[in-house]
């Protein structure tokens, strides 16, 4: 990135995001997944399918995704699959809520606290740049809403992009 780049754009398109956007992790359809959901962003036509393998005692053992989207939504989905694997459904849910707040609210407005892996949240901070780009919030949260639908809906579910 050159010095010509405006600061807020540099905030949005950090190297980590560009890297995950170009080389998404866990971009696959696992054969042994037992939960999935499809998410659509009607504004741009982007779509994502999230696949989860959830153990009987509620641990997300594997998370993966397929689909196509912008750098922000692809990076968000990629990082999400890395961060939720190995966590309980409750932990995933809490992480989603905090991440959602991070993308939509200023710091002092955070209402959810408590049992969230702060290190995971720190890693997701690179996506918080969308706060300055309200039209892009749904890009960052699409995969997460879809994950939420997959957890809530069981084997097949669908999600729409949040308009928040």
């Amino acid at each position, binding site marked *: 990135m050159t010095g010509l*780049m405006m600061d807020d*754009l540099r905030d*949005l398109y950090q190297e980590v995001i560009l890297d995950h956007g170009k080389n998404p992790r866990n971009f696959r359809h696992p054969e042994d997944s037992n939960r999935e959901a499809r998410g659509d962003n009607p504004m*741009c*036509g982007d779509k994502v399918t999230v696949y989860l393998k959830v153990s009987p005692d509620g641990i997300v053992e594997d998370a993966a995704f397929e689909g196509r989207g*912008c*750098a922000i939504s692809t990076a968000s989905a990629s990082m999400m699959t890395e961060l939720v694997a190995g966590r309980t459904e409750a932990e995933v849910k809490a992480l989603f809520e905090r991440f959602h707040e991070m993308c939509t609210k200023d710091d002092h407005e955070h209402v959810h606290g408590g049992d969230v892996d702060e290190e995971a949240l720190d890693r997701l901070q690179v996506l918080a740049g969308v706060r300055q780009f309200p039209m892009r919030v749904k890009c960052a949260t699409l995969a997460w809403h879809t994950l939420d639908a997959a957890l809530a809906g069981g084997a097949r579910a669908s999600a729409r992009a949040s308009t928040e």
Partner: protein
Amino acid sequence: MNEITKVRQGFDSGTATGYDVEEVRKDFPILSRTIYDKPLVYLDSAASAQKPRRVIDAMVSCMTEEYSNVHRGVHWLSATATTRFEAARKTVQRFINAREDREIVFTRSATEAINLVASSWGRTNLREGDEIVISHMEHHANIVPWQMLRTERGIVLKIVPIDEAGTLMMDEYEKLLGPKTKLVAISHMSNALGTINPVKDIVRIAHGKGIPVLIDGCQGVTHLGVDVQDLDADFYVFSGHKLYGPTGIGVLYGKAEILEGMPPYQGGGDMIARVTFEETTFKGIPHRFEAGTPAIVEVIGLGAALEYLMDLGLDRIAAHERDLLAYATAQLSEIPGLRIYGTSPDKASILSFTLGDAHPHDIGTIVDRAGVAVRAGHHCAQPLMDFYNVPATARASFALYNTFDEVDALAASLRRVREIFG
């Protein structure tokens, strides 16, 4: 001399048949504002065009001087508002050269106009197995109402294919027309590609087989103008806000003899001659299709917009936009990795493109920070995006007020996208 310089020189030296665009820009107050401290470069007029002072003034004047409900009151204001309202209908008639003003039905939007035809004409005339022919480049508004009718009536939709350049395959079109074809519904000009369809030929061929034709003129009427008598289309629809007029107002043109055979679309006030609890006698056209209080101020605004366009001259506007498109096409083609969708030899005012691996949404955000407004998305033409196997494109659309410098600003901001995405 390279292509770009040639095109620009042609423009600058006055060989173009356009006009003094800087003078014209003064008519549009919003064009002098800044976005992120940069001059606004508005290249999204295909989604919605900016409004000239004349439209704004007409609407303000309507509300401050002459506002009342129309067709109802005996008082001076109502009579005056009604006169202005119906004068705007005559302006629309003149703008598209309809035979009579009663062939002009005011709707909420072009979408509502198509829905009106689908509901009223479609439900009356279509039976299970009947076929409607649309094209692969249609806007969702000219797909979904027919799909809803398909669900309700069991009709069949046939799709005219396009080639890689985004040109309608006319041979295939002709082959699709059969004894079961009851309607052809095709856009005048693609909002996502800029392709201009040979609508006159489309109508002639369909009429040769006794099939009526609806033309979606949302883009076509804006950039090319239309003479509905010359075109001989049975229905022609368009919206006000893409024509430099207000939102919330659309037009359904229909041949009087066809409209007269259609039942009302919605029931309510101002569309009846007489109501008793036993029966209702409906008014004639066009009022039969205009239930409820219409968009009075918006109709006045639309009339002002059309007067403005006619004064400026549709030929001159088209010439100006043609120069801009040629220049922009040459400029953007120089950017490595940029691919243009829609390269039909007959196209206007729209450049749809992708740039390397950058998603159109990312392109849109980055150029926006330079003050450049483009559309990034599927343009409500998802089947067309599927045809090109892209989720979306970025789209720059050019209007009567855009300049060569603005094209340069777009190109510069796109080079910035390449800096980020490599």
